């Protein structure tokens, strides 16, 4: 069980949190050599509101697919952050978008702030890839999956026209996180 690593991607519907979760799971299990399961929660409407995706990564078979004690959580909005930070484990990581999350929760975890969406807009002109930047950051911060695997996983999921954009986004993520550790 100690081999179990739990990630949560949270934000609002439409920010690509579930896609980020899927890519992370694929990086670990398809392009890496670990096991991974990805799950998500919908509101009863299956649209709008806070959204979360969870990824469990392990070297062993994974039974319980939901988070029990989060190793690393991303929060792209205040609502998601307030709603979902409660089960980050002591010593875990909380990555927040510094422009969005103003009311930073307290706890025995390490909080890392970064203007993710702003970076996406400024560096790449597209906020839509903020999720990919955050993915790169998490890979760097946690070290749970190798960079190559994350990159492969990202590129396998995006349409040909957006390969370059996403390649850049994930690299920005890797780089940005380096200084924040």
């Amino acid at each position, binding site marked *: 069980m100690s081999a179990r690593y739990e990630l949560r991607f949270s934000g609002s519907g439409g920010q690509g949190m579930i896609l980020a979760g899927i890519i992370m799971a694929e990086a670990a299990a398809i392009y890496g050599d670990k096991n991974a399961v990805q799950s998500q929660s919908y509101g009863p*409407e*299956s*649209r*709008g509101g806070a959204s979360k995706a969870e990824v469990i990564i392990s070297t062993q078979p994974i039974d319980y697919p939901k988070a029990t004690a989060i190793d690393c959580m991303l929060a792209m909005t205040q609502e998601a952050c307030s709603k979902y930070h409660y089960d980050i484990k002591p010593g875990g990581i909380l990555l927040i978008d510094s422009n969005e999350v103003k009311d930073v929760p307290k706890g025995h975890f390490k909080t890392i702030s970064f203007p993710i969406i702003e970076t996406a807009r400024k560096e790449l002109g597209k906020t839509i890839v903020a999720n990919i930047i955050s993915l790169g950051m998490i890979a760097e911060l946690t070290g749970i999956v190798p960079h190559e695997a994350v990159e492969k996983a990202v590129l396998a999921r995006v349409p040909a026209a957006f390969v370059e954009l996403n390649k850049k986004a994930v690299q920005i993520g890797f780089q940005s996180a380096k200084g924040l550790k």
Partner: protein
Amino acid sequence: MSEGTVAKKQKLSVPFDYDKYLRPKKLPHIWCPGCGHGIVLKALLRAIEASGLNKDDICMVSGIGCSSRTPGYVDFNTMHSLHGRAFAFATGIKFAKPNMKVIVITGDGDALAIGGNHFIHTCRRNIDLTVLVYTNAIYGMTGGQYSPTTPLGDIATTSRYGNIEPPFDACKMAEAAGASFVARGTAYHTLELEKTILEAIKHKGTSVVDIIDACPTYYGRMNKYKSATHMMEVIEKDGTVSVKQADKLPPEKLEGKLLRGVLYKTDRPEYCEQYATQVMGKATGK
């Protein structure tokens, strides 16, 4: 006549106090940005105001779907029932309490897919229900499958190669089935819609209003519409012609366009009244 002109002609008491009929705490509603359902609801509330009906006497029954979430936001006797069955629940309520004004809110999937049978039997009985069908050519709630009103060739999550099922014309069906009031409106023509709904509410017997509105999230995105506005312009504005204009237009100009306005209206005995006079009357020897 553009909707702007209509707006000027129709005497508007603005701003309209929607809150009077809403359950304001329930807002914001669950509908996506740009979803037509909210626009239709507003026209309905204005029509209800114009009808002078008392909130206690209004009952609103829906099935299941995005459109069918409407009753949750309005301060009447409201029922969110089962997928496709709103007509039957409403029939029970109306028949049991004929003095209530019972309005059925339903989607194209709810009314015409799973609910098709109840739809036609409601029309046949000519029971006094006002039926608003929110026709957005898609199953919105379940994430964008084709519906019985999706145009041929269009894309949905279950028709990735293009839809091959010809769409229903809800108005034709309603008339053939026996409804005594049949009309069509759009969310774009919101003032005209308000008038049409008001007429439907005032009508005694089954009144059906087929309302073309837009689901930008699924139908719009999959079919390359740029925005809700774009959909309203192409589908609702350019895709329809009012019955009044239609008379003046050459056939080629009408091709592929749906008619708006009251398409059919007649005076037929209403079900609850017939039951009271014919059945209860005879049974009690009156």
